[in-house]
């Protein structure tokens, strides 16, 4: 894990590593691994459903899972309660927050039972609210969620609500004015926000060098008076550590942190995209070497925590789980149009 020159975060690093070691028992890590296998299996299934013409559109989180899951797990662990404003590539985020595979597929298939919007929105867009965990993604317009997250955190501070707010977005989002404005505001008022940039080096087809003149977008954090941290986003434990650190910083009232997680986008941008137009087979091969699932598996095997048998079992269970979920979601009804006009305004 590389850090940008900002050092505020570094000071608490030792403490964090200690805490991580304490928390991350082999059982916990095996649980993480199974969930990552489940998400990958679900993601592949969803892609298949799209190819079968059953799911209209899909943004895969393959390659982003370690960041998305590590971040949620750390945030849940270290904050009294959490509000997340994720972006559209958040299948792993969703599962980590407790959305079930069936719910995810209901959403992906635009069924009435979609827990986020009842089928009104793109998969997993809308809001899923529990007392301790709020997932809010009201649009797929890039970067608009940054000010939302900042405003939500402001509201929490005003009302004495100790919730920590987290928002995730891609490298592309950092080019938008809303990103700048939101970062600036959070910095001025030291709001309890954790900004997580899942930098996969590409915005659809536009490579990072055409998006910014710098290598680490985390270097911009200093200009907003907040720490900027670069982390290997394919390493779930590393992500867990730095996000945990940032969340505790937020809880202590020390303000926002910007985390740049370097990830890979293993599939095309969405199911509508064909990345062969702009990525070479070599690039794709290269990325596969950074597959977070593969990486985690190798790590756990090296450590003797995961065995081939446990791995096989995880995959088998995941497949069964996703099979059941698929069946349920496919059998579920589409929304009917009876409430089409509801929720434009508050009903009197």
């Amino acid at each position: 894990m590389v850090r940008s020159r900002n050092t505020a975060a570094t000071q608490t690093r030792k403490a964090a590593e200690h805490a991580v070691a304490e928390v991350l028992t082999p059982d916990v890590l095996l649980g993480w691994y199974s969930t990552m296998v489940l998400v990958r299996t679900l993601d592949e299934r969803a892609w298949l459903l799209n190819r079968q013409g059953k799911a209209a559109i899909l943004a895969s989180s393959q390659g982003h899972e370690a960041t998305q899951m590590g971040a949620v797990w750390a945030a849940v662990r270290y904050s009294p309660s959490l509000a997340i404003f994720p972006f559209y590539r958040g299948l792993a985020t969703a599962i980590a927050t407790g959305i079930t595979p069936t719910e995810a597929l209901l959403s992906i298939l635009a069924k009435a039972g979609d827990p986020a919007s009842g089928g009104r929105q793109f998969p997993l867009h809308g809001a899923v609210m529990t007392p301790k965990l709020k997932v809010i993604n009201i649009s797929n317009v890039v970067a608009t969620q940054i000010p939302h997250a900042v405003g939500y955190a402001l509201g929490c501070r005003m009302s004495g609500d100790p919730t920590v707010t987290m928002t995730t977005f891609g490298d592309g989002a950092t080019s938008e004015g809303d990103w700048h404005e939101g970062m600036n505001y959070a910095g001025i008022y030291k709001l309890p926000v954790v900004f997580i940039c899942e930098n996969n080096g590409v915005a659809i087809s536009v490579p990072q060098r055409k998006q910014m003149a710098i290598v680490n977008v985390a270097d911009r954090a200093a200009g907003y008076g907040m720490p900027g941290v670069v982390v290997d986003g394919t390493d779930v434990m590393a992500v867990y550590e730095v996000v945990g650190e940032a969340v505790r910083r937020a809880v202590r009232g020390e303000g926002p942190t910007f985390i740049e997680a370097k990830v890979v986008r293993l599939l095309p941008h969405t199911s509508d995209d064909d990345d062969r137009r702009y990525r070479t087979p070599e690039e794709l091969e290269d990325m596969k070497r950074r597959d977070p699932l593969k990486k985690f598996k190798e790590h756990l095997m090296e450590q003797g925590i995961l065995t081939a048998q446990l791995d096989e079992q995880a995959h088998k269970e995941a497949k069964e789980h996703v099979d059941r979920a698929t069946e349920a979601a496919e059998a579920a009804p589409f929304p009917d149009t009876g409430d089409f006009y509801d929720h434009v305004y508050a009903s009197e």
Partner: protein
Amino acid sequence: MAVKSVIEAVREAMFEEMKRDPNVFIMGEDVGKRGGVFLATRGLIEEFGEERVIDTPLAESSIAGIALGAAMQGRRPIAEIQFADFIWPAVNQIIGEAARVRYGTKGVLHVPMVVRCPYGGGVRGGLFHSQSPEAYFAHTPGLKVVCPSTPYDAKGLLKAAIRDEDPVVFFEHKRTYRLVRGEVPDEEYVLPIGVADIKRAGSDITCISYGLMVHYCLEAAEMLAKEGVNVEVLDLRTVRPLDKEAILESVRKTSRVLIVHEDNRTGGLGAEVAAIIAEEAFGHLDAPITRVTGPDVPAMPFSPPLEDFFMPNPEKIAAGLRRVASY
């Protein structure tokens, strides 16, 4: 009752609502010590502190977007956009986002936020301090859009907007701020959003308007009265939702319509009002639905003769009324 100006009414409405509900807060450029560039928020930071009267950075998109986020969290932000001309950077967060939250979350979240916005011309403000962008917002389902004309309406409707569970864009005509004074009750009152008001009853022509122009319509109506034409002046007050019933009822009575607004003609509020009438009161009409509006140039120029040329005024409105009367 006391006689107050529009700006006083606006300030009182915010003061009372902030007293009433600790969730209400204000954010915007210079709303703090400066009290807003029009002094709408004068004294509020002294009363409610920096936490509830927030001077923001100069960044409209985030003013709206942060207000939106706070509103989803349960606060009731009043976001001030310093001039309507500077609302454009915030349109993505207001039209693109805020308007769709309730619908897109199927009612799980909603946005009880007010965007206050001084608008309109006749103040030597030139191209970028005179705009009337209400029609853009009035075209947006999910938003409510209010354009009051009097201190009484401004106060009652702003209080309603603050209490409303949905995003309201509240346009205050700058020229009315100090020019228009009127009685405001001492006791608390709230006016319903979406209800038009007959500012002058009449039987011969329905003259439909909102904002500053209502006063010019009233002046024109007096001119026409002297010529024996009895004009009804209907103040829309809210431009989304439109009070269709009030519009149709008046037109059924008079059979003749003049619509007046300061905004450019093409695609302005008058278009929708005319379309409603042409569709739903067609059988009652005795004359073409006529509009007196700002001209179709990109904005109001700065120099006095050019600005005067742009602005509708009582004489131009009276001429329109005569045209409709004599059809």
